[in-house]
C-alpha cells in the first residue's frame, strides 16, 4: 500500500508545474477520467487496475513518473 498514493501525488505535482492554483484543475481532470484523487490515501490497496489507470493518465499528460520505476 502507498504506491498509488505516491504516484497520484507525483502526477498532480508534475502536471501542475508548481502552480498551486492548477492542482485543483488537475484533480478535476482526473475525476472526469474516473480517478478520484482525494479518495486515494496511503491505505488504498495498490491494485493492478488502479496502478495501470494512473500510468495511463501519466502517459496522456506526458508526465514521466519516477515512483513506479
Amino acid at each position, binding site marked *: 500500500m502507498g504506491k498509488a498514493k505516491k504516484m497520484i501525488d507525483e502526477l498532480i505535482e508534475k*502536471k*501542475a*508545474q508548481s*502552480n498551486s*492554483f*492548477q492542482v*485543483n*484543475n*488537475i*484533480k*478535476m*481532470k482526473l*475525476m*472526469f*477520467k*474516473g480517478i*478520484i484523487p482525494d479518495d486515494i490515501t496511503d491505505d488504498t490497496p495498490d491494485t493492478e487496475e488502479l496502478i495501470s489507470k494512473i500510468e495511463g493518465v501519466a502517459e*496522456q*499528460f*506526458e508526465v514521466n513518473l519516477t515512483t513506479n520505476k
Partner: protein
Amino acid sequence: MKVKTAYSKKDTIKDSIEDIKQQIGDFDTRLLLFFASPSLDPEKISAEMQNGFTGVPTMGCSSSGEIVTGKMLDQSVVAMAFGAEIIEDCKIEVVNNLNSDNNQIDTAFDSFGKYFGTSTHDLSPDHYLGMVLIDGLSLQEEAVNDRIGDLTNVTFVGGSAGDDLAFNKTYVYANGATYMDAAALVLIKSRAKFDFLKTQSFEATDKNVVVTKADEAQRKVYEINNKPATQAYAELVGVPEEKVADSFFSHPVGLVFQDDFFVRSPQRTDGEGIYFYCSIKEDMKLKLLNSGNILEYTRDSLNQKKNEMGEISAIVNFNCILRTLELKDKNQTEGYGDIFKSVPTVGFSTYGESYIGHINQTSTMVLFQ
C-alpha cells in the same frame, strides 16, 4: 474600449452582417466571436461574416438562442469584437472528423505550440486562455475536453453548438468556413487579466448516486445503485417511476468536487435506462441535486466575481439551453438579460458547456478585467 458588442435581428445574412458591421464601426478588431441562429443559413453565414471583417480572425457557431449585453434573444446573430487591449495575439484551429479515431486534436495543439513558440504543455494559464465551440450533436464533447486537458494547463471554456432545438444539424464556424462533426478552438494570449465563472442553480443533497452500469459512449445509464436506473432515480427523488422524467430538470445529478460540482443532466428514459446530456462513467459517485433560482444564483455568483476582480470589461457567456428553457418557462429571460446589462456581453444557449469537462445546466463564462 476593450470590446464592442453588436446584435442583429434582420432577416437576411447580408442585412444582418451589415447591421453588425455598422454597430462595431471603426474598431481595431483583433478577434470576432459570433453566435447565430440557424435561421441564418449556416452554410453561408461564416463566409459572409469573414467577408465583412477581412483580415480578422473570426469564430462562432450555430445557437439555440443568443445573448448580448442586457438581452436574451432568438433568431438573431450576436457578436463581440475584441480589441488590442485584450488580445495580444490569438490563433484559431479547427479539429475535423471528431467521430473518427484519427481526429486531429494533437495536431491542432502542435500548431498552437509552433505559433506561440512554446509547447502548449508549458504555456502559462495566467496569460493564455482558450475557447472551444463543438458540434453539439457530435457526442464527442467529453473526448475533446479530455484531450485538451491532457495537452495543456491553459483553461479552455466554451459550448456545444445548437440549432434552435431542432436537434438536426449544428455547425461551428472558423475564419470564413463552416464545419460539422468538428470543434473550433481559439487560443488567446491576453493583455487583460481574466477569470472564469461556472455557475449553476443547484444544491447537492446527501443522496448518493453511484452509476453501476452505463454505456459511456451513448451517454446511457442502465443501473444506479445496482438497481434499474429509472427505479433507483424515482426512489431517490421520491416520485412514482412512471413520472420520473418530470423531475429531470429540477433534479439532475452532480459530480462533487470539494464545495463545487459538475452537473450531469438526465435527458429522457429508454425502458428502464436513462439517457443523459453528458456521459457518466461506471462507478462514478454523484449526488442528487435540488434546483434553486437561476436569477439569484447567477446574480450572486457574478457579483462575487465582480468584487474579486474589481472591474469586468467583457463577458462571454455559454448558457445551457436547459436553463434558457426554464427561464422562458418562468418568464425570466428579461431578468436574466438584466444581470448582464452593465457589462458588454455576448453568448448563446448551448447544447452543453465546456469547462475542464463536458457539463450541463450551467452558465460558464469568461470574464475579462
